[in-house]
């Protein structure tokens, strides 16, 4: 065997796995089909501040813009400002951030293969023995007893291995985004605009990356039939603060806002990060979740490496630990998403009028009961929708 593990995808999940596994003594290869890691950017680039300490994330000057809270807007324009550990954080430059994670993994001893396509699983007597790779016109095999899919939403090799990573239209948001200069009125707040006309089953965001630079994006429900680019262009045209704004980058993508895939491990195979749909169903964020899962998966892989037993029974530790911690939290957020998507703009406006900052904190902590009670007091007709939360 050439390696102890082959990782497909050098995003946050793949590099986090590689760093921890290589530090623990495993020989790790990371392949990525792109020639420039971290590009093209497919997201809003925000990371919540509550992650930095537990995950040891450090944002160097020039890599991110510090955020102090969130401003959330109802369809009628009413603003709620929320400041919690979760709503502080950074909007990062993914192209630098991802590369720094790869550099950290390389320093720990992982071997990197950029511009190298994973074409499929390498098999011997029907058993997976690694990954078939293609680079510079040549096919070759990277052999290892463990394959790690950190492929992001594409997850083609994971699907080839039998994992149910196909995304369904109902459980994705489809997103379009400009990074813009000359944006007026940026505060150190991420801004989220809700409303079924503005962004059907989604939201428009303004994530500042500087005093007058911001990611201005939109996500809409994949089954809503809405054209995200058109809606975003309309939002920008209708708001005078973007009058002088100039796009300096176009980004976008499709992100899971559904449940995590039903299994993360098989014999000799692990799926981590967005490939496993380990994404927050409310805001579609997954950078920190990916780093955490990559690290957790590597701890299970090191256990397997010590025992020289890469069976699902040994690797399952990663899946069990993840589901007990993040899985439990995200399932509450999924419930909340499915409630929010039933609300019309009038309901939204009413709810924003009734609740305050402290209620928003409770909702973010999945402590729904007191907030639901407060809303129902004034609008009992929402019971049939909101009862799913209590």
């Amino acid at each position, binding site marked *: 065997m050439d390696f102890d593990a082959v990782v497909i995808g050098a995003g946050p999940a793949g590099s986090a796995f590689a760093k921890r596994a290589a530090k623990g003594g495993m020989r790790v290869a990371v392949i990525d089909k*792109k020639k420039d890691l971290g590009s*093209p950017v497919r997201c809003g680039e925000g990371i919540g501040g509550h992650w930095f300490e537990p995950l040891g994330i450090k944002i160097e000057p020039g890599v991110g813009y510090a955020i102090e809270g969130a401003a959330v807007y109802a369809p009628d324009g009413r603003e709620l400002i929320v400041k919690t550990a979760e709503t502080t954080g950074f909007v990062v430059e993914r192209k630098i951030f991802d590369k720094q994670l790869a550099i950290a993994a390389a320093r720990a001893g992982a071997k990197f293969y950029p511009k190298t396509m994973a074409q499929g699983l390498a098999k011997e007597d029907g058993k997976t023995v690694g990954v078939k790779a293609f680079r510079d016109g040549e096919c070759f095999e990277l052999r290892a007893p463990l394959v790690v899919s950190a492929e992001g939403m*594409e997850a083609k090799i994971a699907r*080839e291995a039998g994992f149910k990573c196909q995304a369904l*239209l109902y459980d994705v948001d489809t997103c379009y985004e400009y990074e813009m200069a000359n944006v007026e009125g940026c505060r150190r707040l991420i801004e989220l605009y809700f409303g079924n006309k503005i962004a059907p089953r989604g939201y428009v965001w303004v994530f500042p990356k500087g005093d007058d630079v911001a990611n201005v994006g939109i996500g809409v429900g994949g089954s809503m039939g809405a054209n995200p680019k058109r809606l975003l262009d309309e939002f920008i045209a209708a708001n005078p603060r973007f009058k002088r704004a100039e796009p300096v980058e176009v980004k976008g*993508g499709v992100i899971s806002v559904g449940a995590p895939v039903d299994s993360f491990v098989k014999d000799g195979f692990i799926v981590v990060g967005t490939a496993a749909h380990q994404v927050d169903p409310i805001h579609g964020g997954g950078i920190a979740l990916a780093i955490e899962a990559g690290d957790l998966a590597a701890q299970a892989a090191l256990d397997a490496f010590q025992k020289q037993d890469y069976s699902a029974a040994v690797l399952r530790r990663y899946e069990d630990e993840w589901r007990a911690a993040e899985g439990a939290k995200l399932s509450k957020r999924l419930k909340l998403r499915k409630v929010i998507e039933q609300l019309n703009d009038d309901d939204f406006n009413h709810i924003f009028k009734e609740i305050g900052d402290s209620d928003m904190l409770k909702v973010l902590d999945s402590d729904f009961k007191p907030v639901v009670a407060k809303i129902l007091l004034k609008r009992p007709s929402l019971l049939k929708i909101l009862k799913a939360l209590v």
Partner: protein
Amino acid sequence: MTVKVDNSKCIGCAGCVSVCPVLALTLVENKISCDEKCINCGACVKVCPARALRL
């Protein structure tokens, strides 16, 4: 049967790849290609944020 890609619109996000039920789509160096496994289901067309695909 394959879907048609307008690369002047495509932003290379591979969102289409993630919803394709038959793994017919592939992204290489920010370009999407579609092979003969395609069943013309249209999921990719609906999900594409740049509206770059058509049947």
